[in-house]
């Protein structure tokens, strides 16, 4: 009998070149996480722009891309969000073929549990909104929740009883590292230079226009500069004198030891602050909400983990014998309306993509597609136009706290 993980591919050889940075590029992307890599890929693929460098201060996709819990869904409340997340989900559905690389995209569904009357009302409203936007969504009563995920405790005798849940069958998970490698390999093959251990330390501006960057490996001229630094968005934007309405927080996650398959889907609960899936290899993957304070330390406080474990145990009593094997943290860039910022900046030919906070992995292909369009054309794609920086001045916020606050 095949053991756990026997369906996984072998560890790959080098998938991309390690070029020396050239003195100049048409587009310089700051940040080699999932978003930067996907943007480079679609710049080359959709727009024929291949004289592109992705500059990464650490190793490729070692930031939030390496640290996220890989939940993919598109069941957000507002039309603007449904637009971009559903676009991303459709891309996910063809991505493995498109990139010709296994990314273990598994549409095992996502359940968002409701534990109070208000939760129920909000959830049912969100299901209706999702359907109007062509996003698959169902409202399940507790018994139906149990049918989808038999290990969920639906007893009414708990502190936060399960009153039902929303279910998106097309949602799921993917293997985050493979996604990054797949985009990196495909971008590299089209001529994009992926340059690791190259920290951007300054952005050169002449007459209100970005013309290049300074880096730990020397200055690099650029026709266009695209910021993609996630947790470091504020730090990078400040190099161009641009302020962003973003706060950087620690976000933690953890895994158990490898276990027999017990958990067939993804379960999230905003009210009790926990979400759980079981990775392909067998470990339980869990996360919670952000640590409240600002932090760039890639670590958070232990009481957050403790609370998330007690919430998980109440929902899944069968986890009582599981062990926490490893915990870690990333740095997430949180906006006031829990929606991303993607588009132009007050500086010409300087572009911003940030603010995806706790939930930008699922958007990776959609971000790449729309951001590449924005950069190539000097104006936003219709799907990211609502996520402009100006919305904080005009007041046209996209308030996704209900669908995004704890949820990822």
């Amino acid at each position, binding site marked *: 009998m095949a053991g756990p993980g026997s369906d996984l591919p072998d560890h790959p050889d080098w998938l991309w070149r390690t070029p020396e940075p050239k003195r100049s590029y048409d587009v310089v992307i700051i940040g080699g996480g999932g978003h930067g890599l996907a943007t480079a890929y679609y710049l080359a693929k959709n727009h024929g722009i291949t004289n592109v460098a992705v500059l990464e201060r650490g190793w490729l996709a070692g930031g939030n891309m390496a640290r996220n819990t890989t939940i993919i869904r598109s069941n957000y409340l507002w039309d603007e969000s449904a637009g971009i997340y559903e676009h991303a989900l459709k891309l996910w559905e063809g991505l493995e073929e498109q990139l010709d690389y296994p990314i273990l995209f598994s549409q095992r569904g996502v359940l968002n549990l409701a534990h109070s009357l208000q939760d129920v009302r909000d959830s049912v409203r969100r299901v209706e909104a999702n359907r109007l936007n062509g996003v698959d969504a169902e409202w399940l009563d507790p018994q139906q929740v149990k049918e989808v995920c038999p290990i969920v405790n639906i007893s009414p005798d708990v502190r936060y009883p399960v009153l039902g849940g929303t279910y998106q069958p097309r949602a799921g998970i993917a293997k985050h590292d493979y996604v990054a490698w797949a985009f990196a390999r495909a971008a590299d093959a089209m001529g994009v230079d992926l340059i690791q251990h190259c920290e951007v330390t300054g952005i050169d501006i002449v007459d209100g226009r970005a013309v290049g960057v300074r880096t730990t490996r020397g200055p690099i001229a650029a026709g266009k500069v695209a910021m993609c630094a996630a947790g*470091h968005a*504020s*730090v990078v934007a400040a190099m161009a004198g641009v*302020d*962003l*309405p*973003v*706060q*950087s927080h620690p976000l933690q996650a953890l895994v158990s030891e490898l276990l027999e398959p017990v958990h067939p889907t993804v379960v999230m609960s905003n009210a009790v602050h926990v979400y759980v899936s079981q990775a392909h290899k067998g470990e339980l993957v869990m996360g919670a909400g952000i640590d*409240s*304070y*600002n*932090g*760039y*330390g890639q670590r958070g*406080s*232990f*009481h957050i983990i403790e609370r998330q474990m007690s919430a998980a145990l109440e929902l899944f009593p069968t986890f009582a014998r599981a062990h926490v094997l490893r915990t870690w943290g990333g740095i997430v860039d949180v906006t*006031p309306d829990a929606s991303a910022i993607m588009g132009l900046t007050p500086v010409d030919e300087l572009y911003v993509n940030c603010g995806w906070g706790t939930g930008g992995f699922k958007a990776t292909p959609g971000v790449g597609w729309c951001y590449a369009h924005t950069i190539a054309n000097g104006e936003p794609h219709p799907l990211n136009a609502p996520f402009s920086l100006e919305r*904080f*001045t*005009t*007041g046209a916020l996209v308030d996704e706290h209900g669908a995004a606050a704890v949820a990822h």
Partner: protein
Amino acid sequence: MMLISCPWCGPREEAEFHYGGQAHVSYPEDPSALSDEEWARFLFYRDNPKGPFAERWNHSASCRRWFNVIRDTVTYEILAVYPVGTPKPVIA
């Protein structure tokens, strides 16, 4: 978990406190005189430095009082604790 020194109760564990974000942000004296840009800045823009940060904490599980802290956002080390309404101490 951080150990935070409440000026009134002494060192207590972080779980007793509530975070209040950036310190020294005062309500505009004449809100209706602000432009949309200025109002947006007051509502939505806060400093987000990598390094020392002046921020507010409330000892919500005990004396329930607010105070200010300078904390390094990379090491999480607390560099100063000082009362609300007093100037930000200079960190060497």
